[in-house]
């Protein structure tokens, strides 16, 4: 197990959003304000880590044929826990995230990591993988929120930074989500291919 390598994979080379292109629906829909992005990112991080741990623990008991159903049951259990916690302690964020919290059940990142990593690796490694991938997801969400909220609404976490007449409202609409995400993915691919070329030329 290599914590540093897993962290690097989660943040950069195997970033769930920008490289694996998973979890697009939530990424596009909720990245209109920093608070939303943080709430969503942390929720996914917690659920991903916990479900990775449980799935890694029970992976030898689960028959191969029904593993996907098992994953969903485990994930749905944790999503319900997190959903109820959010509603109890931060009702404002729960209200603004709305249906996207229950939808984490079918978030491709969590299912994907369960299938690709937790089902094949030990408990500790899976936990670390969950944390790293979760951080990668959260960071991308925050970057998108930052760009879209600052340029689209002129605020950051509700505090007005740009006078009301200037912000480009289009960026808070779905169109803006696609534009910002596309630009980020392109930038990421460019950076990755550049570092790859550098390594090869060495």
């Amino acid at each position: 197990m290599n914590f540093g390598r897993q962290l690097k994979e989660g943040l950069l080379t195997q970033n769930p959003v920008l490289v694996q292109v998973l979890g697009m629906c939530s990424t596009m829909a909720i990245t209109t304000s920093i608070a939303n992005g943080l709430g969503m990112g942390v929720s996914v991080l917690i659920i991903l880590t916990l479900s990775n741990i449980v799935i890694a623990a029970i992976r030898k008991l689960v028959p191969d044929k029904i593993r996907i159903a098992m994953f969903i049951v485990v994930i749905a259990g944790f999503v319900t826990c997190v959903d109820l916690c959010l509603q109890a302690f931060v009702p404002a964020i729960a209200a603004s995230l709305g249906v996207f919290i229950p939808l984490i059940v079918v978030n491709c990142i969590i299912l994907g990591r369960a299938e690709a990593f937790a089902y094949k690796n030990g408990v500790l490694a899976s936990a670390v993988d969950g944390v790293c991938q979760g951080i990668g997801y959260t960071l991308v969400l925050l970057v998108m929120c930052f760009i879209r909220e600052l340029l689209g609404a002129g605020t950051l976490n509700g505090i007005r930074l740009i006078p009301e007449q200037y912000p480009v409202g289009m960026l808070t609409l779905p169109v803006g989500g696609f534009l910002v995400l596309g630009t980020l993915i392109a930038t990421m691919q460019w950076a990755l291919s550049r570092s790859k070329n550098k390594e090869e030329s060495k």
Partner: protein
Amino acid sequence: MTDYKNLKLIATSNPHIRGSETTRSIMLDVIIAMVPALVWAVFCFGVKALTLTVVSVVGCMFFEWLYRKLLKKPQSVGDLSAVVTGMLLAFVSPVTTPYWMILIGDFFAIIVVKQLFGGIGKNFVNPALAGRAFLLGSYAGVMTTWVDPAAGKAPLLGGAADVVTAATPLAYMKGSGDAVAASFAELTAKYPVADMFLGKTGGSLGEVSALLLIVGGVYLIWRKVINWQTPVAYIGTVAVLTFLFPKAGSNVEWMLYSLFGGGLMLGAFFMATDYATSPVTKKGQLIFGIGCGLFTVFIRYFGSYNEGVCYSIMVMNLCVALIDKYTKPTRFGVVKSDKKEAAAK
């Protein structure tokens, strides 16, 4: 006698005969064709119309230059296509648009729509229209505030003409039933058809004068820069539909006001004919024009916007690949049985 032994024969691939046309010369023609409308805009709306256009053009050229420079690509500012985009974007904006706003539109048009997709010829929608749609989505308030040119007193002479906002003719023609009948009567009383044709109504900077836009369009057709198919099919479709289904007034009256009010002439001659985003074949251009006309009328009649030219052209831009596919001319030597065989496959 020619000394064949020492004659240098250089082998190059075809084409061997080149016309004198270049992108630059074509774009220059388009710019020339837009000048009358620009002069009229300055006459109507004041010097701000000219400065706004200049700012927009400079912005477009700067963004184009910057992108090509940063990405170390061959410089393409010289082909003047950025100038055309800048002019068109200014033409479809109200004269009251602030300079910083038009620069955001320039950025979107040139960087996002044009350069990110590979530069000139590779954009899939018209950059100027996309820039306008972007601005309209972001700043709906500013982008739908129109100045009444009739209210400005000698704006050319610098006098701070009070900006009197006015609804565009199309706003009077929106709605249904008795409401539209009343507002249409108001419109016909306010502006006679001649005013509509000459361009004394409120509207975007460059769209008001149908006459001067037609002059520019005819110049482009005469110079063979554009084919007549797209504009004629476009305007014809709108004319037929509005003639057949007037919402108020007489058929002819409603048709004329529909044709001259709004950006139809500008769109038909200068935007729907953009090379990169319109079909290659003449048959395809006819279909393209008819499609634009249908969508324009549909949006004006049933949509929530007053004007449908911008979106109708953008929607049809997206269909160009399909239209091109189905209007591909038969290759030389292909006979009917070949076609059947190909269809059966």
